[in-house]
């Protein structure tokens, strides 16, 4: 089957066309990736068109769409989700959301257990942990890096995490005391690989809801403030 993969949960604007056949691993046909946190709206559909053109695939030949659902701090996260939703609706094909962290983990060749971290801004990271079988065993969560380090040494210690990947892995590697693996941004193959089970089974897609992990910053107004001088 032919799958269009999209992700805008990190500073990367990612689109790609991937073939997923039988039990074979996903195969990349074409991709377009630009790292620019301010260009999600501008570049995503041109990237889709360019990747399809290069792959020699028409939109009406697509069987499914996989869309990174974050977590991501950028308003751009919604660009990928709404683009996936609208394309899926117009083409009449299923759209499967998949955690962006899972997609990075899928594309990372790791050996023992893996921590994936992405930038959550406000000096925090989004993170998940994957066991040596590839299953997610913790996360997704949002925390300060030192809190993640403390958890690795404490409650997550039995999992034996030794490696880390993701866009901000290098930045925090020393604090975590982990070996950095080269995978940074989510890739089309990673996105499709992380959604391989529902794709192959033809399962009903999960709701297209982003993994926000944070409540909107809004405060209810308190008692009315006096404007007159007392």
């Amino acid at each position, binding site marked *: 089957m032919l799958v269009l993969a999209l992700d805008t949960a990190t500073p990367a604007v990612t689109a790609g066309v991937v073939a997923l056949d039988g039990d074979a691993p996903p195969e990349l046909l074409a991709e377009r990736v630009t790292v620019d946190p301010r*260009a*999600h*709206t*501008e*570049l*995503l*559909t*041109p990237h*889709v*068109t360019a990747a399809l053109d290069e792959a020699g695939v028409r*939109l009406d030949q697509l069987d499914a769409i996989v869309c990174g659902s974050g977590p991501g701090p950028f*308003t*751009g996260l*919604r*660009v990928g*989700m*709404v*683009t*996936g*939703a*609208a*394309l899926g*609706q*117009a*083409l009449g094909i299923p759209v499967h959301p998949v955690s962006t962290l899972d997609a990075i983990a899928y594309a990372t060749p790791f050996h023992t257990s893996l921590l994936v971290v992405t930038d959550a801004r406000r000096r925090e990271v989004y993170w998940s942990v994957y066991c040596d079988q590839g299953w997610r065993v913790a996360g997704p969560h949002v925390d300060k890096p030192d809190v993640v380090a403390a958890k690795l040494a404490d409650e997550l210690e039995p999992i034996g995490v030794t490696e880390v990947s993701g866009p901000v892995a290098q930045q925090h590697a020393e604090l975590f005391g982990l070996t950095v693996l080269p995978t940074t941004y989510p890739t089309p193959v990673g996105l499709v690989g992380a959604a391989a089970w529902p794709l192959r089974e033809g399962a009903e897609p999960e709701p*297209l*809801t*982003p993994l*926000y992990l944070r409540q*909107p*910053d*809004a*405060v*209810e*107004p308190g008692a*009315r403030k*006096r*404007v*007159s001088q007392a």
Partner: protein
Amino acid sequence: MIVLGIETSCDETGVGIVRRHADGTLELLADEVASSVEEHARFGGVVPEIASRAHLQAMAPTMRRALDTAGLELSTVDAIAVTAGPGLAGALMVGVAAAKAYSTASGKPLYGVNHLAGHVAADTIEHGPLPPRCLALLVSGGHSQLLLVEGLTEKITEIGATIDDAAGEAYDKVARILGLPYPGGPPIDKLAKQGNPRAIAFPRGLTGQRDAPFDFSFSGLKTAVARWVEKHEATGAEIPLADVAASFQEAVADVLTAKAIRAAREHEVDTMVISGGVAANSRLGELARERCAEAGITLRVPRPRLCTDNGAMIAALGAHVVASGAKPSPATLAADTSLPLVYGS
């Protein structure tokens, strides 16, 4: 020609569809709106992140309802228009990204248009093409503008705007002072009907000799209402809520219409369009009718449903833009909070 319009600049997710006939008249085929207004109520104003989240959830279902209402498929429309600005950046982004995807999937050309010009275009759905020159007064929770419109697709000039709060914002804040719910427009309008508009002389902002003749200021009015209420609370007297509401509403309607009429006279136009959410306000409508009649100005106000943010107004503007022969927006279209009023300028 059939044009579909998508609007997500604030807290309404709108999808509208219009057919434009050869004589320039429009036929409304669908006008579906999903609002997140209730989710903002407890914050007393629109929370951008909440609005953006709601747009994402509402986009596809609203599109489905609009196409079903019109009995159309995306493949049977001729063009897609979307609000590309101005508005809340994160909210605009959802509509623009969706519109690009619908355009890409259907192969239909995409036009990123201006939200304010859309409010003016809304009136052409109901009252037909605009005269060559007219004045538009846009009043809502987000805008207070005076526009000189010399062709929706040719020349629109902003001749006045609020220097602080929008008129609708002042309504929301005064409603809070009076203990009325959000949004403040409808409850104040209702309460004002039982009050005396001349009971309290609230200030008319920016109406002095040296003030900018067509700009607005509503922040001082809001503070004056708060002061007046506090002073009366201090004396232990019961607040005459209806009189406060009526006097506040009178001040808003007086300033808006006086400046609009003056602008129409000075720019020698004989038609005025009032649009935006506050255009549904009963006192504003009454006073505008009175003063326009006195000044010999034809007043055009679309029905309330078309005054508030919706996709139909964007479809309407899109239809006029397509008819003008303008080129579609580039594939790299993005939300632009300072988008020019006239398409392609």
